[in-house]
């Protein structure tokens, strides 16, 4: 789960990392109050994507009136597909210099990688591209975490030797997010060194591992509902489906992630556009199929549905019967094309045909068929 800035900062503060004074504001009035308490503030849109400054999601406010106005403009704004649910009002820092500190999973090394750079405040991917030597890197041992001398070395390599001691202690605190929260990415960019010499997190990103959600229920409970997600994705999650919304008009159901992804590709190749990714996993049980269809049909853009099921052990006739029942229960009238294979697939196809569902012989043929049928409906 990707946390919003104020949530990530709350977590950092709980790990002992200094953050600037700030308040969450859910409406313009709360923003005005925050400014009255804190003095001049930056009013920042809370969205889980970068580039909000450029999108007009950050405004400076010197007075409560300005803060009220800024919040009124920012709350509800759309930034890269996310509706801004609230703003974070934060006091500005007296900046001496800015550095970059973060960790993420280095997939190639199959390890966590800690990164420190004197070039803070910029997009780290761009820094990595333009001056890779300015980023110092460390792969800490996952069992014991980074050692003092390793962090000392990291600071000197990054050209931040004079800050080695305070950085060492701060990085250790940040690293606790791995064992304690199952964080997979954390970034403090910029990490600000103030004119008074304090080290404070200027911005914060934090992402936790979805595979570990079962042992961190408190994170989901505290932060999960703030962001108004895509309504279909929210509904799919309630029904335990692996579902991603896309912007086309053909609903897709597949069993297995790879098969489902390749089905999206086939639809595009046939000239259509998929409305979603939906993996129903192995087995293709009637109840799961019905859930998947129900979520897909919630989307008014959907003009037809393609289902691609490869049954290794799954029985085709059972899948077909379940599908017919699901369609009837949902009173579905849109075109439905089904490609399925597995044991008893012939029998399954017969059941589909008798019930007015188009069986496709191959995935490619089925993709072409659904594109044709949905075009005919325009």
């Amino acid at each position, binding site marked *: 789960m990707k946390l919003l800035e104020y949530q990530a900062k709350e977590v950092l503060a709980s790990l002992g990392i200094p953050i600037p004074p700030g308040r969450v504001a859910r409406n313009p009035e709360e923003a005005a109050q925050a400014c009255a308490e804190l003095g001049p503030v930056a009013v920042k849109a809370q969205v889980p994507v970068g580039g909000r400054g450029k999108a007009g999601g950050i405004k400076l406010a010197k007075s409560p009136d300005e803060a009220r106005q800024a919040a009124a403009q920012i709350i509800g704004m759309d930034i890269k597909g996310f509706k801004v649910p609230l703003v974070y009002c934060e006091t500005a820092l007296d900046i001496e210099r800015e550095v970059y500190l973060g960790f993420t*999973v280095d*997939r*190639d090394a*199959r*390890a*966590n990688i800690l990164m420190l750079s004197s070039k803070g405040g910029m997009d780290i*991917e761009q820094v990595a591209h333009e001056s890779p030597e300015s980023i110092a890197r460390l792969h800490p*041992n*996952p*069992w014991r975490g980074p050692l003092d001398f390793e962090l000392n070395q990291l600071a000197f390599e990054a050209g931040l030797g004079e800050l080695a001691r305070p950085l060492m202690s701060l990085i250790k605190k940040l690293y606790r997010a*791995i*064992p304690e929260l*199952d964080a*997979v990415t954390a970034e403090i960019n910029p990490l600000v060194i103030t004119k008074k010499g304090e080290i404070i997190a200027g911005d914060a990103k934090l992402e936790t*591992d*979805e*595979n*570990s959600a*079962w*042992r961190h229920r408190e994170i989901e409970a505290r932060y999960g509902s703030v962001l108004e997600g895509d309504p279909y994705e929210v509904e799919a999650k309630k029904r335990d489906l*692996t579902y*991603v919304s*896309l912007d086309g008009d053909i609903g897709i159901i*597949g*069993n*297995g*992630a*790879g*098969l*489902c*992804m*390749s089905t*999206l*590709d*086939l*639809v*595009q*190749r046939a000239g259509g556009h*998929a409305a979603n*990714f939906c*993996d129903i996993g*192995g087995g293709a049980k009637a109840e799961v199929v019905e859930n998947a269809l129900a979520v897909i049909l919630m989307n008014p853009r959907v003009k037809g549905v393609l289902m691609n099921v*490869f049954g*290794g*052990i799954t029985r085709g006739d059972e899948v077909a019967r379940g599908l017919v029942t699901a369609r009837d229960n949902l009173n579905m009238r849109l075109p439905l094309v089904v490609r399925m*294979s597995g*044991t008893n697939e012939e029998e399954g196809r017969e059941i589909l045909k008798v019930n007015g569902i188009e069986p496709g012989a*191959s*995935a*490619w043929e089925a993709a072409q068929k659904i594109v044709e049928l949905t075009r005919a409906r325009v």
Partner: protein
Amino acid sequence: MSILLDASTRVIVQGITGREGTFHTGQMLEMGTKVVGGTSPGKGGTTQLGVPVFNTVAEAVKATGANASGIFVPPPFAADAIMEAAAGGVSLIVCITEGIPIQEMIKVKDYLRGYPAARLVGANCPGLITPGVGKIGIIPQRITSSGPVGLVSRSGTLTYEVASALTAAGLGQSTIVGIGGDPVMGLTFKDVVELFEKDPATTHLVVIGEIGGSDEEHAAEVLARGTRLKTVAFVSGRTAPEGKRMGHAGAIISGNRGTAKSKEEAFRNAGVAVAETTDQIVGLLR
């Protein structure tokens, strides 16, 4: 011949008394796999499907001489099960479990450095099968046949789809390996391609990749150095958007990294034929 699994492979199943463990142990036995034991703490001394059950891997290995293990335990216990298998002396560890926390897999990878003889396949994978000989995992035997094609894939059902097309076309397989859809896993494409390269029974190779990470690119680098295997690659997720996890934890494009385009280009640059749909694979392989 084959890779990883042959007639001398003696398998134990960790989690043999669970629903999945029991069902798939039955399937493995049915095709003639030498399943010599299983583990389930507290149930040592009993039998499951006629197979002796032990409390620990160490006991099972000592009593049965097992050299391979299939893991069917739930996600909170799976990382520990992998390490138990390695410490118990198992040299081929196949973990089917989906949903192991990434930080635990990072620890597992570090732990396995102490057991250089142990090879891990997965997790979050369908396992592997050497048609006509045996399997560890859940790949249906019915869709496979024995022959010269090596098949390696990150996906489950897509692997079945391709195996089934190969079988229908009379192109049998030496070994099929599902390496899994997680971002941090055991054997990579590169590792498996190198094993197929050394296997005299394998003359053809199919690589089924997907978006995310750069393991396909690393395999392409190996193939670019020259291979005797006639190779076809396929990458799913051409139309996947950036930043969205497409089912598999590892199937995510971050920024401009991990795209299908980059992977297809890497394969083409290595002189490998790239199939644009799975239907094209058989034709390109011939």
